[in-house]
């Protein structure tokens, strides 16, 4: 009893009723295709989220001053006492698990080079900021410690700024004016593209934080010496980020002398968590859609069972004949089981092809991230096989249990 021959018998039988076989398969085709599409779309958006988190740095934490509350009135974020260089120093001393740490001061202003000008975000940073925020210096170099300490008039430019100001010329070594202060460009930043919020991240200029305090940021910075707007830090990957978050919160409360029970006047944020939470609904939706697709597959399976029962009844005499000429019951069982599985497998191949095609169309037309995930193809094909075995078994068993004498006489 060659297995290949059994498959051949199944193929011949399916071809004899080509239209019916195709219609039966349709349930499986649609089921598998939708499984593929749903999973591709949901893993596409998941990959997108992971990419965004990766870009932020999955072990990065951000500490920012909270909104001050006076008389029950929020004064807006950043209105509380700002951080200082001293806070950063203390944090560094206290926690060995801190990998890199940097402050930042944000402001906006016009930048001029030659006849071109452009208003952009100007961020004062420590040298570690580049690594903490996962920037890459494309050309040139990062700030030196001296430049950061002593207010060096040097700048790193994002790609958008370069494009606006330099018309394709190399900016390295060029002298630009930021809020009328002359700066030397010492490096360029590799493009990061859009953030998950859809804003370009490359429209940015970095300058040393001390320079920003003294020359550029015109706000309350002078009221607090060595003021630092936000703190960004990375922790060692072997340290649990949640625990680190708690440790940092506790220590910051100490530093800022917050009475037990009183509200924090700052917040420690974990951006990866934030993004994950923001996208939780979309992954739940993806799961729901995958479940719907699975139901489609189930309905397809019931169709298979139905048509196999019809086929077994129709071919009663054939079954009787096969038994008479020496087929064992197991042979008949296998014949119909293989037929059902073959039906499902062929259907699943079509389904996979259609699913991949549909995913590609979705990706190109509505610009949703679609990630074809190879294991899911195998999962789809094996679930089709399981559907075939499960729903084909009862009809096949029925066929194999026929009494040959009655079956041969069946009209």
């Amino acid at each position, binding site marked *: *009893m060659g297995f290949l021959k059994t498959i051949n018998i199944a193929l011949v039988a399916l071809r004899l009723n080509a239209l019916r076989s195709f219609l039966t398969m349709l349930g499986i085709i649609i089921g598998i295709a939708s499984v593929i599409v749903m999973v591709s779309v949901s893993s596409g958006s998941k990959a997108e989220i992971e990419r965004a988190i990766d870009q932020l740095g999955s072990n990065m934490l951000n500490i920012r001053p909270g909104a001050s509350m006076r008389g029950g009135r929020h004064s807006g974020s950043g209105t509380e006492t700002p951080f200082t260089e001293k806070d950063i120093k203390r944090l560094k001393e206290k926690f060995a698990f801190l990998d890199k740490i940097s402050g930042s001061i944000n402001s906006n202003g016009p930048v001029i080079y030659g006849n071109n000008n452009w208003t952009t975000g100007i961020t004062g940073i420590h040298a570690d900021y580049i690594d903490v925020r996962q920037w890459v210096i494309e050309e040139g170099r990062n700030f030196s410690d001296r430049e950061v300490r002593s207010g060096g008039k040097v700048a790193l430019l994002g790609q958008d700024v370069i494009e606006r100001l330099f018309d394709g010329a190399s900016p390295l070594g060029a002298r630009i004016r930021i809020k009328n202060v002359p700066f030397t460009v010492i490096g360029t930043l590799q493009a990061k593209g859009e953030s998950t919020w859809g804003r370009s991240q490359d429209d940015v200029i970095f300058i040393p934080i001390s320079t920003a305090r003294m020359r550029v940021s015109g706000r309350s910075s002078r009221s607090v010496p060595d003021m630092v707007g936000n703190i960004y830090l990375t922790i060692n990957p072997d340290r649990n980020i949640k625990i680190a978050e708690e440790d940092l919160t506790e220590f910051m409360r100490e530093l800022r002398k917050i009475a037990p029970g009183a509200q924090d006047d700052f917040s420690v944020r974990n951006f990866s968590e934030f993004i994950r939470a923001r996208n939780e609904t979309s992954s739940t939706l993806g799961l729901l859609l995958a479940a719907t697709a699975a139901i489609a597959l189930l309905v397809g399976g019931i169709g298979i069972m139905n048509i196999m029962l019809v086929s077994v009844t129709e071919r009663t005499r054939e079954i009787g004949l096969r*038994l008479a000429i*020496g087929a064992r019951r197991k042979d008949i069982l296998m014949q119909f089981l293989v037929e059902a599985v073959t039906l499902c497998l062929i259907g699943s191949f079509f389904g996979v092809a259609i699913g991949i095609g549909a995913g590609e169309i979705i990706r190109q037309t509505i610009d949703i991230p679609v990630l074809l995930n190879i294991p899911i193809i195998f999962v789809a094909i094996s679930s089709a096989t399981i559907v075939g075995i499960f729903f084909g078994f009862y009809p096949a068993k029925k066929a194999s249990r026929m009494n040959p004498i009655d079956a041969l006489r069946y009209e």
Partner: protein
Amino acid sequence: MGGETIHALRDVSLTIDKGEYVAIMGPSGSGKSTLMNLIGALDVPTSGDLIINGLNLSAQEADTLADFRNQTIGFVFQQFNLLPKTSALENVKLPLFYSRHKTIVDADELAKQCLERVGLSDRLDHETTQLSGGQQQRVAIARALVNQPSVILADEPTGALDSKTSLEILDLFRELNDSGITVMVVTHDQEVADQARRKLFFRDGEIISDTAVRN
């Protein structure tokens, strides 16, 4: 269900030798079909022994009976029972597919020889539905022959054929019998029975006559 037990065959004691050509006659319900089913191993006796080629069929596993049917018996039916939309050659090859105990070197060649033997060497690739009744029955006989059976069991083999074609089929049975195969034919038709060398007549589950045919 329940009620009285009906004995399709009772007190039948019968020996058929290798190479005989036996016609089995009798009215409907006389037990002749039951006898055929028993000899063909499609059914097993409730009591008594049935020994064919040294194998006692009364006490065998279903799989052994299937193998026995495959190797020892060649069935020929009134309605031919060929697979539709399938070539003559494929139909004839069918029993080889279920032959477990021997290696078949060239199934096509074996099937071709059998079709030649029944005079259909020019119809190998015809689908069965394209063949006449007589030709279809020849294909069925070729299928019965492909495993070189000891016994051909034919159930009303000419019942669906006209008289001229019937005669051709009967000639074929005679030829097969001459070559040493035991042939058993169940029939209502006296003319068909006359072709055999021995006639059994059944009534109410019993053999009421067992005669040699002179021809």
